[in-house]
């Protein structure tokens, strides 16, 4: 397979990363990665969710500091201790969501933080407007620098964001999923802009999940997988199939102890679930003892759909049948009552209540069961908590310890215990192992397997291909709010997952 040539020494590269390491507690986000950006060329950084792309952007823009390796600017080692240092060196980023200020003018938005000054130290409004006008003209945007941002449409705002990125003397422009929120026409305009920037000799780092874009505008590619450099080269030398293979690589070499499950009767049936903006026409069934994987890119609408299923948001249409009874779920309380529970992705924000002790977190949705005549029985609360935390092998000094003092893996166990204690029929796990260490990961997988074997139906939303492949009986792939494919058996391969998720279309055989 086309593992490209290894990193050529930073010869000719404007900006290069050399063996960069970045670790977070329990996880190595980047493991000695290489990246080179050349003047007048677009380099696409390609990789699955979790490959380390965003971490690279944060290191290049001075938000994160690498734990090892070097950043080379024109071949000289540099460091970007702050975001200002990075932009001072000419590295600028157009983010997925650039923060702009509604009540300020276009010129003020472009120059916020580094406005030209008069000799009295006051902001030189006239010069700022003139320069903003020049910058906007250079990218072909016909926007009056004097209007307030709130009076502009989405596309124009995007151009303002780009203008802001270019208002510093930029040599390196990072575009992180720049087309995610744009219409086809706007995307075309963005491509033209990229050509303009290339012609001006800027080195561009382009991050996208869309293969058609990658092939349309990039000159070079670099592929990361699980925080490691996989390959790099000229885009002309590779095919889509090569890139997909590099992205997923040895995807299934981790151990996922999914047991052969006794899949039983249909438990949940979702028909025509739709939402005005987030997802449309979701249909599927879920059987007893089954683990149903939901795969897709970030933003495919998986979590939004799950939140709608448990009553956090309302669907515009659609119906839910649970064990052959039509259920209307208008709130999470009704979902819990019906037996559908959701373990959210962001445990810090949506899962655990950090200031409360373990037992109070676990029993929170089950307080009716542990009370008598309106009063809580602590002994029963502890008993219920112990029952589930022991099953999950939760290690804590005492069940009275606050959850905030536990490790990420143990917090996850508390959240799962909380939901199991409600004795659900369907449990939805959203990215169940994101950000937890390998040991806890294996325990969570083992446990999911056990639950399915006991007859619980599991929906697992995951962006990790090995996890999806290893754990799921069946996989639904979502793309842009719709079900793109339902895969099982032999059709379930890393390539098919990626192709359906990215919308490449499963044409021919990728050899």
């Amino acid at each position, binding site marked *: 397979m086309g593992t490209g040539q290894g990193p050529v020494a930073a010869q000719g590269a404007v900006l290069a990363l050399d063996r960069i390491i970045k670790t977070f507690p329990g*996880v190595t986000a980047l493991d000695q990665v290489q990246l080179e950006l050349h003047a007048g060329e677009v380099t696409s950084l390609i990789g699955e969710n979790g490959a380390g792309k*965003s971490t690279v952007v944060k290191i290049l823009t001075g938000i994160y500091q690498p734990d090892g390796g070097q950043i080379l600017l024109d071949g000289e080692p540099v460091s970007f201790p702050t975001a200002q240092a990075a932009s001072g060196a000419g590295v600028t980023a157009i983010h997925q969501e650039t923060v702009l200020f509604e009540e300020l003018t276009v010129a003020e938005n472009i120059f916020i933080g580094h406005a030209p000054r008069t000799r009295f130290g006051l902001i030189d409004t006239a010069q700022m407007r003139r320069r903003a006008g020049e910058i906007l003209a250079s990218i072909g945007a016909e926007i009056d620098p004097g209007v307030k941002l709130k009076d502009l449409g989405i596309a124009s705002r995007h151009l303002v964001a780009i203008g802001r990125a270019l208002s510093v003397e930029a040599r390196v422009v990072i575009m992180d999923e720049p087309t995610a929120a744009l219409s086809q026409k706007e995307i075309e305009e963005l491509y033209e802009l990229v050509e303009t920037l290339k012609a001006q000799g800027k080195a561009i780092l382009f991050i996208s999940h869309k293969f058609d874009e990658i092939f349309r505008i990039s000159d070079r590619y670099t592929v990361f997988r699980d925080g490691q450099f996989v390959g790099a080269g000229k885009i002309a030398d590779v095919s889509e199939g090569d890139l997909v293979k590099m992205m997923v690589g040895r995807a299934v070499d981790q151990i996922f102890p999914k047991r052969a499950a006794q899949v039983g009767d249909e438990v949940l049936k979702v028909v025509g679930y739709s939402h005005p903006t987030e997802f449309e026409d979701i249909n599927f069934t879920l059987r007893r003892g089954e683990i149903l994987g939901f795969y897709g890119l970030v933003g495919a609408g998986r979590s939004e759909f799950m939140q709608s299923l448990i009553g956090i948001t309302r669907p515009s249409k659609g119906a839910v049948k649970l064990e052959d009874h039509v259920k209307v779920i208008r709130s999470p309380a009704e979902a819990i009552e019906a037996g559908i529970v959701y373990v959210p992705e*962001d445990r*810090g924000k949506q899962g655990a209540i950090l*200031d409360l002790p373990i037992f*109070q977190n676990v029993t929170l949705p089950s307080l009716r069961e542990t009370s008598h005549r309106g*009063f809580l029985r602590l002994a029963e609360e502890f008993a219920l908590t112990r029952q589930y935390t022991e099953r999950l092998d939760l290690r804590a000094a005492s069940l009275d310890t606050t959850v*905030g003092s*536990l490790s990420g893996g143990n917090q996850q166990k508390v959240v799962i215990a909380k939901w199991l204690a409600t004795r659900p029929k369907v449990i939805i796990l959203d990215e169940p192992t994101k*950000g937890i260490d390998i040991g806890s990961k294996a325990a969570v997988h083992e446990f999911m397997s056990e639950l399915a074997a006991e007859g619980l139906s599991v929906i697992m939303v995951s962006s990790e291909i090995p996890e999806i492949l290893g754990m799921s009986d069946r996989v639904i792939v979502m793309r842009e709010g719709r079900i793109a494919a339902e895969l099982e058996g032999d059709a379930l391969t890393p390539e098919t997952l990626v192709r359906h998720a990215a919308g490449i279309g499963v044409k021919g055989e990728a050899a």
Partner: protein
Amino acid sequence: MSFVKSREAILLAAIVLLLGLIATRFPAFITPHNLASVYSDTTPLMILALGQMVVILTRCIDLSVAANLALTGMVCAMINVAAPDLPVGLTILIALTMGAALGAINGLLVWKLAIPPIVVTLGTMTIFRGVIFLLSDGQWINAHEMSATFTGFPRQVVLGVTVMGWIGLAVALLMALLMARTALGRSFFAVGGNPHAAVYTGLNVGRAQFLAFVISGALAGLAGYLWIARYAVAYVDIAGGFELEVVAACVIGGISIAGGVGSVLGTVLGAMFLGIVKNALPVVDISPFWQLAISGAAILIAVTFNARSGRSKGRVILKSAEHAQ
């Protein structure tokens, strides 16, 4: 967490130290009789602070408590003038109900219209004061207009402590029971500790906040009767600015303004600390100006302390999750 290292224990130690310091200048201050009277005097503050505690736990604030107290107290006094023979029990029931109703107004505005609590209660605070003026025409209701049972009840002494003091104790015990042993009490902590997680757990955040305001209002109403009867006078500006002292008692008592953290015992101790400072300074011949300064300093120390103890906890939930993608 063991009691010795807890916030409450440190506050208790501070109170003992404070009493010790006062005793060196004025030994009579720490006689049981005097302490009982200081406690009685502090009861309204304690009752209000217990209501405020619930509100702050749910990430709200109730600035209308003192105005609620004054309005409910005025209404109680007017009812007493109109019907002097009404049993005190019934007066208390009216006070609780009316206070709860006023609290419910705050709660509904916060819940249903999602107006920030500080704005809502700033508004109702002013409105309540205005209503007192309209009702009373700006006139005072004085001791001689009130019936003897009405004014005498809170001041009766049972087992060395006034009835008002016993009522305060009963409120504290009931609140402790509510907070520790009911699903509602637990939901206040959950909703304030992490509103997002509370929603996912099936709790209704707005409803919990509404109920917190109702409790705060009911206790303010109760304190309204006790205050008017104790001081045997009702007028527009009664307990003016007292809401800040109430919030101060909560903060000193370790209730986190960020919500979700606090205890009944802490709140009681916070109120007692302020009560002692207030009662002791005049007798040891320190100007009332210092009382404000000392209260203010106590608040800053308490907040600094709370912030520091919060930080030392292992609060790095999933920093690593940031690395994802």
